[in-house]
């Protein structure tokens, strides 16, 4: 069948079973928009800013097992998309971004709305393509989806000049792709896995440390099974929350800068550390030299060899898809009668429980002023712990991660690697579209929400009943906290003046807005909001302005040098 390039693009998306494309039209993609118009399989979500299109597609991907798709025009459309692409890249999210480009003959002529999109995005994509011939569109898009979701996932950009989308050719969607230069290792090395299992069985102070890889590999079930078989303590990074049920006894909470005392102590003093799909980020292990002081054997499972031995030395590297590797570990354990020594493990747990008894997540609640931790606890109660929670970046993000207990994967969507303020609302849009019946909450701050607040309009158009929980402290709270602790309380430009009345603003967009000022109103407001099944409700919680996030490991310090509360200062 002979089709135009634009029609081929849409047919490819249909073949990939894409149900939503998030985008914004413009000159260079007009043919593609025309092709979209003439079909109804791929639905288009018109955002109000290209950054939000990419974030929404990203949120869609994070909340499902699918590739997120965004469509933007050339020039400013593409540059607006860059923050979204980089955000997805830093957290290894599978996405395909299609951008329009000026006609091939105009490339390099400083044409209207011309930018070197492939050049600009090169450092923040897994791969990108400029399609110069209509006959290459189908194979390129096939490759793009394949690259996005295999190996270590990531965003892939396909730049299509306007004339290429207009030209015609015979369409046939390739059944498969093979690339001699790209063959990610899937199966882990048997011998290495055997070595790892042996180490785990002999460990005296074992610890399991898992990350976003578990979510990306859809391996929460395998991880849970293995962890229960071994009976070891476990921690999930900010990106790995929900990989293991947070309400389980073996779970110690999050590690790292704002992780729990028990998770950090157990990480640090473990003698065998099993790292699964986690990359020893600086926000997790603190000072790497301090971390290396304590001798321990490290087993590291990751699909990307470059994640292994990058920041810490690893004793047993295992490259492979961790679902396969975990299954193999389980198989080997099942075939092996040996189990960890219960006495040794028992005394390790006694130590861990002693750390746990410090109750580092305790906070002083108040009858007068709303504490942010309290809002999140109530949010957890009201939603039965089963909502999809998105967040922005700042203190509210940390409180959400600490006080909402995630028992399942793909329920917690946030920007960990790039830390992009403004992702919360678009993530919620993508998640709500992907999970129409689900309760979706966006935990945000008064600063972050304003970075993509225009999307309230998109939410109206697509009837997305998101519940926005604005933890409004009238401060760039995370910045203020650092200024208080490390910059002599000089609050340089961290106060948010002239804030809008968010409840009224939400109403102006056609939604429901509530302003909550008293602790006693928190639960009622949340219940009212979630009872409104068809409405977006903007809950503007006026919280304690000076609350800080604890525990905290200061940058450059070791994991065991935590500030547990304001009293430690």
């Amino acid at each position: 069948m002979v089709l135009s390039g634009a029609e081929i693009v849409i047919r490819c998306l249909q073949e990939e079973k894409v149900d939503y494309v998030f985008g914004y039209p413009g000159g260079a993609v007009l043919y593609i928009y025309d092709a979209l118009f003439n079909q109804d399989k791929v639905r288009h979500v018109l955002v109000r800013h290209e950054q939000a299109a990419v974030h929404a597609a990203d949120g869609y991907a994070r909340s499902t097992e699918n590739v997120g798709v965004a469509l933007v025009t050339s020039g400013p459309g593409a540059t607006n998309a860059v923050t979204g692409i980089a955000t997805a890249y830093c957290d290894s999210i599978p996405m395909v971004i299609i951008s329009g480009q000026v006609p091939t003959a105009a490339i390099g002529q400083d044409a209207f709305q011309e930018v070197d999109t492939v050049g600009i995005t090169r450092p923040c994509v897994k791969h990108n393509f400029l399609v110069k011939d209509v006959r290459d569109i189908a194979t390129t898009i096939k490759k793009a989806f394949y690259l996005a979701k295999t190996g270590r996932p990531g965003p892939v950009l396909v730049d299509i000049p306007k004339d290429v989308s207009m030209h015609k050719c015979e369409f046939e969607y390739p059944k498969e792709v093979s690339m001699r230069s790209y063959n990610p290792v899937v199966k882990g090395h048997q011998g290495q896995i055997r070595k790892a299992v042996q180490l785990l069985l002999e460990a005296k102070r074992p610890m399991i440390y898992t990350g976003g890889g578990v979510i990306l590999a859809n391996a929460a079930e395998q991880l849970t099974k293995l962890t229960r078989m071994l009976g070891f303590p476990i921690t999930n990074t900010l990106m790995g929350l929900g990989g293991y049920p947070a309400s389980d006894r073996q779970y110690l909470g999050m590690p790292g800068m704002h992780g729990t005392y028990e998770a950090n102590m157990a990480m640090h003093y473990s003698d065998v550390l099993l790292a699964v799909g986690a990359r020893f980020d600086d926000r997790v292990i603190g000072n790497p030299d301090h971390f290396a002081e304590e001798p321990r054997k490290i087993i590291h499972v990751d699909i990307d060899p470059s994640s292994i031995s990058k920041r810490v030395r690893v004793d047993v590297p295992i490259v492979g898809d961790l679902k396969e590797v975990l299954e193999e570990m389980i198989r080997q354990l099942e075939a092996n009668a040996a189990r960890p020594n219960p006495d040794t493990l028992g005394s390790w747990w006694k130590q861990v429980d002693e750390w746990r008894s410090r109750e580092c997540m305790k906070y002083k609640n108040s009858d007068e002023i709303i504490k942010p931790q309290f809002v999140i606890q109530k949010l957890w109660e009201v939603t039965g712990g089963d909502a999809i929670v998105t967040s922005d970046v700042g203190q509210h993000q940390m409180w959400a991660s600490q006080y909402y207990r995630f028992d399942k994967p793909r329920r917690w969507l946030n920007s960990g690697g790039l830390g992009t303020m403004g992702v919360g609302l678009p993530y919620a849009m993508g998640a709500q579209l992907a999970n129409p019946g689900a309760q979706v909450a966006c935990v945000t701050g008064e600063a972050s929400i304003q970075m993509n607040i225009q999307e309230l309009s998109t939410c109206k158009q697509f009837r997305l009943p998101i519940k926005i929980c604005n933890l409004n402290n009238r401060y760039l709270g995370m910045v203020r906290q650092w200024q208080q602790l490390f910059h002599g309380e000089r609050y340089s430009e961290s106060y948010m003046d002239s804030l809008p009345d968010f409840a009224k603003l939400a109403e102006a967009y056609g939604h429901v807005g509530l302003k909550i000022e008293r602790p006693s109103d928190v639960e009622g407001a949340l219940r009212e909001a979630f009872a409104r099944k068809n409405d977006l409700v903007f809950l503007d919680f006026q919280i304690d302005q000076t609350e800080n996030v604890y525990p905290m490991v200061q940058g450059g310090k070791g994991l065991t040098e935590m500030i547990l509360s304001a009293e430690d200062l």
Partner: protein
Amino acid sequence: MRHVISLLIENESGALSRVSGLFSARGYNIESLTVAPTEDASMSRMTIVTTGSDDIIEQITKQLNKLVEVVKVVDISEAAHIERELMLTKVRATGKDREEMKRMADIFRARIIDVTDTSYVIELTGNQAKLDAFISAIDPALVLETVRSGVCGVGRGDRILKV
């Protein structure tokens, strides 16, 4: 430590900038980088001379391997290998310098490939040290310009980089 990394990469436009971008983005050193198509025109071979600790070199090879268009990477300096570089040097060659320059070229087994009344172009191949030695052996005041190709290298014997 100095390392010589050879790689095969798809001969696509932009492939070179992916490699050079990787080095600059991650702060790795590039002493020299050479690239040209191989006998299979769909692939190019690149030789990169870099320096770094073992950890850094390990990351460099891993990061290079991670580039979607890179087919194969080896650190040829890990074992016996040969390195060659080409240098063209244009020198002033007048009066007694003319004879002296010819003599130096002969000693280094270089060839004079262009001759005018006042200058020579001298072609010299060898490893980096030999080229450096030639440059320091001749009178710097006579050097009009030099151009060096950067290193290319190949493993000795059975060590073959091919798909």
